[in-house]
């Protein structure tokens, strides 16, 4: 187990390093930072002053390692635009993004688990095929398009839910549904496959031979085993959803980390963009580790003898 964790940690560090390098290179590719910071009316002298003030006159490698060194100690630098610490900016907006991600995950699980179980119990019936088709459709639907459709129907025509902002929990429902849609197909399929496999297993035959109730057989004995991979994938899907929130927060005007990233890209606010990418990557890696831990918690066989 310890060896496993160490290996995981090394992978995590490698991923973080790769992401940092990519984020750094991509932000530099988009033109001369000093010019965009100084603004359209700046003179050549202003630009030079900015270049010096922000340390952009140094060689790229020096800038890179300076950034990496600071990031490693938790200092993500200062925003060019907001003139405040990037860590503070991200910290303020993170709760919104996390709330959104968790809402999406909960909705996804509330839909996928019953659908998957139902499809498995009715394997190869019309119902099973309908469920699989719905899952397929969900996968094919672009999230911004689904977001707009929901806004028009639930928001504007029916008036059930607010279409933008973060004032109340209702504000998270629509974007949550949109985020959930991206995870539902995979989670439903996995639940269905896991349940079918479990229901055909010898230990379920034993459970039936013990005269247990149908509910106990399905939910206690079969789902418990079928859920192991589902929980792991759900954690990974949460990572995807947090990344996907860059688009969704934009569509629904939720001022979370995704929104911040979007704004900052438009303003060439590179410390923020770099930091958001890094933070999301670290969260993603952390979630995959959580998935492994959940696996070990749920599957006694992984806990060792």
């Amino acid at each position, binding site marked *: 187990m310890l060896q496993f964790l160490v290996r995981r940690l090394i992978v995590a560090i490698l991923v973080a390093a790769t992401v940092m390098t990519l984020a750094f290179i991509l932000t530099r590719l988009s033109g001369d930072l000093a010019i965009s910071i100084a603004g359209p009316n700046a003179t050549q002298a202003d630009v030079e002053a900015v270049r010096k003030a922000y340390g952009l006159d140094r060689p790229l490698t020096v800038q890179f390692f300076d950034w990496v060194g600071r990031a490693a100690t938790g200092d993500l630098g200062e925003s060019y635009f907001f003139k405040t610490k990037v860590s503070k900016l991200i910290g303020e907006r993170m709760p919104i993004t996390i709330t959104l991600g968790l809402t999406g995950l909960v909705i996804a699980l509330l839909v996928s688990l019953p659908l998957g179980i139902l499809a498995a119990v009715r394997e190869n019936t019309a119902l099973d095929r309908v469920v699989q088709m719905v899952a397929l459709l969900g996968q094919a639907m672009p999230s911004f398009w689904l977001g707009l459709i929901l806004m028009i129907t639930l928001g504007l025509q029916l008036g059930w839910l607010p279409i933008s902002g973060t004032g109340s929990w209702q504000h998270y429902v629509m974007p949550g549904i949109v985020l959930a849609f991206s995870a539902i197909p995979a989670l439903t399929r996995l639940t269905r496959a896991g349940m079918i496999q479990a229901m055909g*297993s010898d*230990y379920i035959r034993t459970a*039936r*031979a013990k*005269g*247990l109730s149908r509910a106990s057989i399905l939910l206690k004995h079969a789902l418990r085993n079928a859920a192991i991979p589902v929980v792991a994938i759900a954690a990974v899907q949460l990572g995807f959803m947090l990344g996907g929130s860059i688009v969704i927060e934009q569509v629904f005007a939720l001022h979370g980390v995704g929104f911040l990233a979007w704004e900052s890209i438009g303003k060439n606010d590179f410390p923020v963009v770099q930091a958001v990418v890094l933070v999301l990557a670290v969260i993603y890696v952390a979630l995959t580790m959580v998935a492994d831990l959940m696996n070990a918690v749920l599957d006694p066989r992984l806990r060792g003898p």
Partner: protein
Amino acid sequence: MSALLEVDHLEVNFGGRVSAVRGASVTVERGETHCLVGESGCGKSVTALAVMNLLARGARRSAKRLAFEGQDLTGLSDSGMAHLRGNAMAMIFQEPMTCLNPAYTVGSQMTEVLRRHRKTTQRAATDRAADLLARVGITAPGLRLGQFPHQLSGGLRQRVMIAMALMCDPKLLIADEPTTALDVTVQAQILRLLAGLQRDLGLGMLLITHDLGIVARVGHRVSVMYAGEVVESAPTAELFANPKHPYTKGLLRCVPVPGKIRRDEPLGSIPGTVPRIGPGFEGCAFRERCDFADATCAHTIPRHAASAAHDFLCRLPA
């Protein structure tokens, strides 16, 4: 009083193509051990699963009569059957490695069956589980109760299965090769335990085995299966002394020293293999391998009685 278990003309087929059981009849009396023997694939496990209504999806079961303590099982609802299973009739499976749920401890799996069928506390159920584990020869039962199946060897898992089947004091125990995963001393211990339970509780047992040594030691009655049919059935001593069906004779000939049954001797040393039979098959299924086969063997075969309790399925006269 009716017999404990009556199976008359049981038929099981899979997807309408494979006839796994073709009119098999078996009766188990209270307190009797009825052994079911035969080569691999002849339908022993399918017969047992059909009685418990635990056949895989796609299997079709029918019978002239299938009754437990006089109660018809074919018309019984799922919940009615669930009420009997694990309770008055219990089963031990052939596959000890995979029969326990990997996600739950031995203790939780053993106690849940008792708590399903009896009103007891968790404490009392745990005590009973520990007691039964000790009786099937497991040392440190307290420790085992807290362990997960993957922490146990195959032999231990099989003994846990046996103990679990006994949790509710069943009247009928269907045991599908319950001792194959165990070494000889444990095997003897388990057989003694089952024999003891039988005496004390009047437990009836349908014991499926490959081991003629076990049959000779514990079987009151033996039924020999071949290709989904019971081809001969008799009290144990009579079957060993006076086998009638050529297949039974073949099985007994496979045992090296006449009169003395050697343990661990697998069946099926008769040349050839069990044919796979589809619906509409007629005549004796053994005729390809039988030394006495002739043209009449391709037609419907009569069942002869060699004595009041001994019958066989062959064209040859008694």
